[in-house]
């Protein structure tokens, strides 16, 4: 049955590729549709018609949209993301450092959130219907039903205003010691961790609960295995696939989270760059940021699906 898995994975990858093309098409057209002529905007009101005409030609603005799309796509594939309207810098250069910052924030959050959420999710499943499990479930409903910025503002209120441990909404770019680092990153990371942990706890709890309801777990219980042994030796190996799938899916929520968190804490990442680009209507920059986010999201969801396929023993 080996090639059945291979063909399923290949099919999923093909779907991802098609989706990537449709998505980049959508992003390009959403931004290309806006009213106003790019050449006129760039040259300003005082430009002569000849100059506007020349620039239109140089930028290939008179070509049919489909050619412009293909040219742009070819550029993206080669790493040429165009030039920012706002300050004439190559977009790739503007994004580079910002992307590293965002990945730093996301990576740090993942390192903290994943073990934390899995521990809570699995223990909640083990202690199903106890006070601990119920409190956790209520907390999760609360967290998933409030906006991310509310969690961020509550974190600021708690740590900066009432406890006075951390500076309020400001991100210091000067980081010299580990202490500075911790102070600067504490609140963004705490906020993001809370946001994505809630989903991860919910899904990993559900995955373990499902395996705990199977006949072989009941058998283990009947032969007198301890609760810890049942969960760790019998249930967990089979729940691993769904759990890893849940982790990958939850990490994709990071993308929505960073947009809010980077804005509220003034963190110099890609999401902040994009929100700023929206207010200055800097299209090449918006397109590139959007593509980066979409591909990141697609990568995570595709990984989640492939893990789900690979970890399903019925397909082996």
């Amino acid at each position, binding site marked *: 049955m080996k090639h059945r898995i291979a063909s399923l994975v290949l099919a999923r990858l093909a779907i991802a590729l098609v*989706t990537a093309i449709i998505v980049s098409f959508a992003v390009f057209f959403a931004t290309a549709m*806006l009213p106003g002529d790019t050449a006129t905007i760039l040259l300003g009101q005082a430009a002569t018609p000849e100059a506007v005409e020349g620039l239109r030609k140089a930028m290939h603005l008179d070509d049919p949209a489909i050619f412009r799309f293909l040219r742009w796509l070819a550029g993206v594939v080669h790493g040429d993301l165009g030039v920012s309207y706002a300050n004439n810098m190559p977009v790739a250069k503007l994004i580079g450092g910002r992307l590293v910052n965002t990945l730093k924030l996301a990576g740090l959050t993942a390192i903290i959130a994943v073990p934390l959420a899995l521990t809570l999710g699995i223990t909640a499943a083990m202690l199903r219907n106890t006070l601990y499990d119920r409190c956790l479930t209520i907390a999760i409903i*609360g967290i998933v*039903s409030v906006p991310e*910025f509310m969690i961020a*503002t509550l974190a600021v*209120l708690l740590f900066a205003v009432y406890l006075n441990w951390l500076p*309020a909404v400001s991100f210091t770019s000067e980081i010299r010691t580990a202490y500075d680092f911790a102070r600067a990153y504490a609140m963004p990371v705490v906020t993001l961790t809370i946001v994505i942990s809630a989903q991860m706890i919910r899904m990993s709890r559900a995955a373990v609960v499902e395996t705990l309801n199977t006949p072989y777990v009941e058998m283990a219980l009947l032969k007198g295995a301890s609760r810890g042994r049942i969960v760790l030796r019998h249930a967990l190996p089979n729940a691993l696939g769904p759990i890893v799938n849940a982790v990958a899916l939850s990490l994709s929520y990071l993308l929505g989270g960073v947009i809010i968190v980077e804005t509220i804490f003034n963190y110099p990442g890609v999401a902040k760059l994009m*929100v700023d680009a929206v207010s200055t209507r800097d299209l090449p920059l918006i397109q590139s940021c959007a593509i980066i986010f979409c591909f990141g999201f697609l990568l995570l969801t595709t990984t989640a699906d492939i893990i789900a396929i690979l970890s399903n023993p019925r397909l082996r």
Partner: protein
Amino acid sequence: MTSDATSAGRRSRLGYRINAVGIAGALIVAFWIVVAFAAPSIIPHPIGDIVDSDYFGPMGRELWLGSDYLGRDMASRILMGARYTLGISVASVIIAGAAGVTLGVIAAIMGGAVDMVLSRLLDALNSIPSKLFSLVVVAAVGSSIPVLIVTMAVIYIPGAYRFARALAVNINTMDFVVVARIRGESLSYLIRAEILPNIIGPVLVDLGLRFVFIVLLLSGLSFLGLGVKPPYADWGALVRENIGGLPYAAPAVIFPSLAIASLTIAVNLLIDNLPTKIRDREAS
């Protein structure tokens, strides 16, 4: 959401039990709906008037929830904000629901190429993160209220489509649908009279959950300054306006957030505690 609340009430008179938490949720939702309709006649001060000599004023007898960054009455602004948050969200959930469910049922009935093309396209749409999609649209066409409504509707069409299609596929194989087909009934008759009545319960519940996501997205966008623009203000925009009061723990920042949380948590509680007979009677 009104339809969810009323259908829960009607069924409970028919003999289904709905528990206390569900009723509490329903009451909070009903409260905000009444506020949204009655806001202009119950606000204590006109929302544009500067009534406090100081900004970020504390809570008191005159100004229940303090004053905002210009010294305007916060309670009035929150009550009026309910109109925008609820109105925009309800409008887009209705559009998303109508379009998604119609397409989903059509895909289920027609099957074949129509089904595949629709599913692929909407799946692709679904793989654009929602905040990002709205950011791009706002960048391209600006953020007037109609644009916001349509954008958020488009974002949540794929979800509604997928849900309705999954349910309709099951119904579509049943004998009474096959018979109706053989009778030569039209597509619109099949949708209206055969499929829709059998999936409407779970579909409405699902739209309730989508309503929560839309409220959260709208608030998030307004918070980023890309949603509802002044002079109008929904709850997310109120948080944004007054974010400067955060270091002083001003009620002006806290209460709009609480308003959002009370609405979304109440809808979630209401839906979680609906009798299972309404939730998945037809799905099972």
